[in-house]
């Protein structure tokens, strides 16, 4: 059995374990143990991968294996990872541990909650380790039920509406993706394997519609304009852990798909048509930033800022230069950790103050200094302060985007850069209202600061932010050869 299967088996077995756990405590411990084991395993896997690469392993994917699944349709269960998928796996493992820790005090239907969280994680891991497009699609879709139920049952506000909207829009995205990959199968020599599809020369006429379908389909998952409307409602209604997952992991599934399937497998069409998505990404970046400014609810604020930040991912991928794509991958990891921290901090505040309105809060730093600090750190990462992960990744995207010689591309780059200013405005304003200042509400004087589980979660996520911020070469080295491979495909 391929060692990568362990990545799916750990969360799956812990999910089953959760079902058989006797009481709530056992449920939480099982889930946490699974998540921590998974994080450790992901760390070991990175080490093993790096060692193989150092020793001179050259294949595009390592740890490959190939199991027949549905033979008449040439569907295989193919596994393999490269640096890009590995960084996504590390991101997922980190966010899952933090998400489970943050949800420690959940009381309603505990067993079901953790079961669904683990199922959601299983889908994400599966998506990142398979190299068969059909199997990828299977894992992509696997997350639909958990997302819907997590928001609909444990959410707040107009949760049923949000859950339904999210499920339907993501289903629409999946349908587009499915049409696209069916096209890959029929026009790419009847195979679903990414490795084999790379070698196929699909004619440009065919590539064009497929590229648009697949990119737009995955774009829905990344909350690309105009398919972003599920994100604000979904994120704000979801329970904290689910928001962390949605923004931290689920939106990255889309970015990964845009890069790995749409851009990598259909390079000629990408050259011709990526301008469509650059325009959409630019709109998302600017619209998202301005929409964030208008929000009072902290969760809506972070949701719209996620739309803006994921716009950077799309922009980086669509610019088709090496630096931009590297930046896009870094931005995916960086935004994943940062937004998870943001949602965790907002969730902690909401649990205590029972409001998320920025203007009703105030003086959080005095009352709950730990949570306040976490909030500020995530805010500063979001606006791109040097030293944190946001700066390096966005910077790399800008540099890469500027390399593109086209005039329109330069304009898009400048617009994207300018949005940073707007980001600074809304972040500083939110921090000013909610965190600084004097305590406005007497009831807040009784608030207790973060408990152990919340502290752990925060430390893990801050650790991720700082490591990427101070040592970005860790990621760039991990993904360098893979981005080079994608570039080689783009320049063929």
């Amino acid at each position, binding site marked *: 059995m391929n060692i990568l299967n362990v990545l799916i088996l750990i969360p799956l077995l812990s999910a089953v374990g959760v079902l058989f756990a006797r009481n709530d405590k056992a449920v939480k411990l099982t889930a946490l143990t699974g998540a921590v084991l998974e994080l450790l395993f992901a760390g070991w896997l990175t080490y093993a991968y790096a060692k193989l690469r150092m020793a001179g392993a050259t294949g595009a994917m390592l740890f490959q294996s190939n199991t*027949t699944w549905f033979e008449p*349709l040439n569907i295989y269960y193919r596994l393999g990872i490269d640096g890009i998928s590995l960084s996504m796996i590390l991101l997922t493992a980190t966010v899952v541990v933090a998400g489970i820790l943050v949800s420690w005090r959940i009381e309603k239907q505990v067993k079901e909650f953790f079961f669904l969280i683990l199922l959601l994680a299983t889908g994400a891991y599966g998506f990142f380790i398979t190299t068969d497009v059909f199997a990828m699609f299977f894992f992509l879709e696997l997350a639909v039920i958990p997302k819907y139920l997590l928001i609909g049952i444990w959410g707040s506000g107009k949760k049923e509406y949000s859950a*339904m909207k999210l499920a*339907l829009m993501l*289903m*629409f995205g*999946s*349908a587009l993706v499915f*049409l696209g990959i069916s096209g890959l199968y029929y026009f790419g020599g009847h195979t679903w394997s990414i490795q084999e599809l790379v070698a196929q020369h699909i004619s440009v006429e065919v590539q064009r519609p497929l590229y648009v379908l697949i990119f737009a389909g995955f774009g829905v998952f990344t909350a690309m304009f105009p398919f972003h409307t599920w994100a604000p409602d979904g994120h704000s209604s979801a329970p904290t852990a689910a928001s962390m997952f949605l923004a931290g992991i689920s939106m990255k599934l889309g970015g990964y798909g845009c890069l790995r399937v749409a851009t990598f497998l259909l390079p000629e069409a990408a050259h011709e048509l990526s301008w469509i998505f650059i325009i959409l990404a630019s709109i998302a970046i600017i619209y998202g930033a301005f929409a964030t400014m208008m929000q009072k609810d902290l969760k809506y604020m972070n949701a719209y800022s996620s739309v803006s930040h994921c716009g950077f991912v799309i922009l980086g991928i669509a610019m088709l230069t090496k630096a931009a794509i590297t930046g896009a991958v870094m931005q995916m990891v960086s935004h994943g950790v940062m937004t998870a921290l943001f949602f965790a901090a907002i969730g902690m505040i909401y649990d205590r103050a029972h409001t998320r309105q920025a203007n009703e809060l105030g003086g959080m730093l005095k009352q709950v200094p730990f949570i306040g600090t976490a909030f500020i750190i995530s805010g500063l990462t979001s606006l791109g302060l040097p030293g944190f992960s946001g700066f390096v990744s966005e910077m790399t995207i800008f540099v890469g985007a500027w390399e593109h010689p086209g005039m329109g591309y330069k304009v898009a780059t400048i617009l994207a850069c300018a949005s940073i200013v707007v980001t600074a405005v809304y972040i500083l304003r939110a921090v000013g209202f909610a965190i600084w200042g004097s305590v406005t509400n007497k009831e807040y004087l009784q608030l207790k600061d973060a408990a152990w589980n919340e502290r752990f979660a925060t430390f893990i996520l801050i650790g991720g932010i700082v490591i990427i911020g101070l040592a970005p070469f860790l990621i760039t080295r991990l993904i360098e050869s893979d981005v080079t491979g994608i570039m080689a495909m783009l320049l063929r």
Partner: protein
Amino acid sequence: MYKIAIRSSGSLLNKISMNLETISLLRFEWILIAIIFILLVMKLTDADKNTKSMLTVVNGLLLVNFLAGLLPMAEGSAFSNFFHTSQLIVLEKNILNLGLLLISFSGARYLYSIKNQLEFYILMLSSVVGMFFMISSGHVLMLYLGLEMSSIPVAALANYNRTLRNSSEAGLKMIFSSAFSSGILLFGISLLYGATGSLSFDAISMSIQPSALSLLAFAFILGGFAFKMSVVPFHLWTADVYEGAPVQVTNFLSVISKGSVIFVIITVLYKLFGNMHMEWQLGVSVLSILTMTIGNLFTMRQTNIKRLLAFSSVTQVGFVLVGIAGATKVANASVVYFVLIYMLSNIAAFGVIGAISESTGKETLSAFKGLYKSNPMLALTMALSFFSLAGIPPTAGFFGKLFLLAAGFGQGLYVVLAVASINLVISLYNYLRVVKTMFMDDAEVALPSIKSNAPLTIALVICVAGLLLVGFYSPIFNYISSFSYGM
């Protein structure tokens, strides 16, 4: 004298062995007929006084019937090609047998409560015998006879709650619509005879050419079958009949009746009208678009769960038609595979609906509010079957539906696929609406914890296990695909 005796005994032996061969080809049919006879004898001897043990015996017989179907069987034809059987046909009959068994199990509670259970079974089994002949037919006459034999008993079944007004309405609508569709079908058949001069499948498939007459014949024949499959615009009877008939009869209608017609229409289109591939592909595509879309739109507004499933079954047939239009070996396999999955999903859903309606007397969607809190296992079963119908992993419906669509893509049916993808979204809404009712709404009246009886539990467990296994466990699809055929 001596010689003659030898010769005649030789020919007798010959005859006997030929008859044995025929009998073995007809194994599925005569086992069912034998069961019907046993039931008749039981009825005559008043063996149905002890309802419980009688039902156990019947269920046992059906189990034997199903298991006997799994025994290996030769391919071949009998009665000068009126009847033929192949591995695919055996598989299709096995699927129907499984459905029959599961419906009988899941309907146990309803059957306890009614009188004349034996007649219920006799009618149901006669209908299935008709389906088997229909599926095996190699001649249009046999096809028509089988179809009639399969649909008339169902009308009586739909009317089984004789004291209820809408049950009678269901029976009447059923008999009218099936008579009407048979008329259309017969008219098509007579035109077909005019066009080709023959009624045997082999002769027709050889000589048929796209001409005005044969196109007209095709249109009428397709229309006749469309009625039975409740394809839009021939679906109008579906909702009323489904709503009025007893739950288990609705189950039978939506799964077994529909499944058998889907099986047979593959034969009709691929073999009989094989030369008119382009023409029928267009027709089926148009019907598919209409069926999915209208079925879906009507599902959205239903408040009665049986009506909801009626329109949902219309939608599902729309997806099946995409696969049928796919017309390749894989497409054919996907259709059979999908029917199996659809059957498991619907039987699970109707099993739960039956349990709820018998304990609360309600069949509205609002009766399912808060079901997860009072009866978690029933709610989970129902949710799983609905996820399967919506085509969401990890259920088998995901694979079934995607294979159908992929088959359509292979034939370049891009418009159909574009419509189908939008319909995937709408149908997800329809199914999630029920899931939401069960998991997120609070019950208006607190539901009692429903005690599930053993047969129902067995049926539901088999369905749920099937819904998970049939998908992941790829050998099932590969097996079906190994003897399916394309154009």
